[in-house]
């Protein structure tokens, strides 16, 4: 999962201080793996250098967590590109996809379009595997089947999520 895109996406709804960013990340996406402050600041300084965020203000007497960051236009474009680009289908994608869906809802983009793009990317790979299975020997078939069943499980998750988008949107925006 891309921490820098996630932090950037969180900034899109409004400027935040470093400590506030970490809290928002942990609360929404960090259930099993909260961020270290060090990760937040190294990420923010890279984003700063690349012109994707800017420092809007610094609270007096504070360290880096007191800096108030705002997303730039280039940053918004970067988030949009990341959300629109489907992920390479592979097992255990869920945390990245979940993050993308939540950020799309938070930033008022179409989560349904994102899920559709991901579905068609998954199906594209499933077609390739199906074709390889058709022309391969039994060993190929078994290996492809393993991948196909995993991709199918992903797709079922995408489907279920698509069906629950309205409820998720209400929860996320609450």
């Amino acid at each position, binding site marked *: 999962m891309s921490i820098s895109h996630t932090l950037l996406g969180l900034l899109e709804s409004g400027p935040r201080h470093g400590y506030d960013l970490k809290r928002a990340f942990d609360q929404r996406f960090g259930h099993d793996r909260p961020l270290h402050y060090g990760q937040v600041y190294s990420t923010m300084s890279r984003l700063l250098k690349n012109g994707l965020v800017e420092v809007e203000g610094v609270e007096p007497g504070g360290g880096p967590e007191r800096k108030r960051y705002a997303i730039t236009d280039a940053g918004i474009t970067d988030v949009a590109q990341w959300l629109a680009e489907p992920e390479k289908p592979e097992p255990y994608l869920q945390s990245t996809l979940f993050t993308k869906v939540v950020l799309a809802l938070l930033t008022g983009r179409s989560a349904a379009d994102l899920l559709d793009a991901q579905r068609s990317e998954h*199906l594209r790979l499933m077609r390739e595997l199906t074709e390889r299975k058709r022309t391969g020997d039994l060993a190929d078939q078994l290996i492809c089947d393993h991948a196909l069943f995993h991709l199918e499980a992903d797709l079922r998750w995408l*489907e279920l999520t698509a069906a629950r988008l309205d409820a998720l949107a209400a929860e996320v925006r609450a």
Partner: protein
Amino acid sequence: MTPAGSLLTAENLRKAYGPTNALDGAHFSIHPGEVVAVMGPSGSGKSTLLHCLAGIVTPDSGTITYDGRELSAMGDAERSALRRGDFGFVFQFGQLVPELTCLENVALPLRLNGVARKAAEGTALGWLERLEIDSLARKRPGEVSGGQGQRVAVARSLVTGPRVVFADEPTGALDSLNGERVMELLTEAARSTRAAVVLVTHEARVAAYSDREIVVRDGRSRDLERSS
């Protein structure tokens, strides 16, 4: 506007059953020899779309064009001739005639088109062989397994040399192995005869046999090929 080279096109179809909008702006197109999967949640309108495309159900509005002719402009007789001659059908539960043998079931569409018994059964036997079930020719549907019955249904859908095969959850009642074999046989046969296949399925591994998918949600479908 019909996309260039498309065999069957639907634009902006609407169909209501009482207060339910089964179709609410559905678009679709398919080329000769193409396999298109129609996906989407249960109740989203997939079967209704298939029935409209096949001329079984008349939409409330929208246009369906088959081979340059508008379906709604045809009379009932012309439409049912189309269904018998140009279209083939496979449904979830075979829907074979229980009193007829498997061979007679496969020959039936030809018989209904006026082909003599001997010729019809000869062609039918060829299709049974192709689907590797010629040993079932003399059995009745009640005496074969679900997977075997679906192969008989696939043979029957192809026997008239249709230009479009409509398949609604053709593997829905089968386990993975049999389902995949049926899909392999159906798509291979369709590709070799240049028949287009409209494949309704909610299973991704079945849809993976298609060339392209469209997704129906709440009666609406976008044809991604057309919008891109």
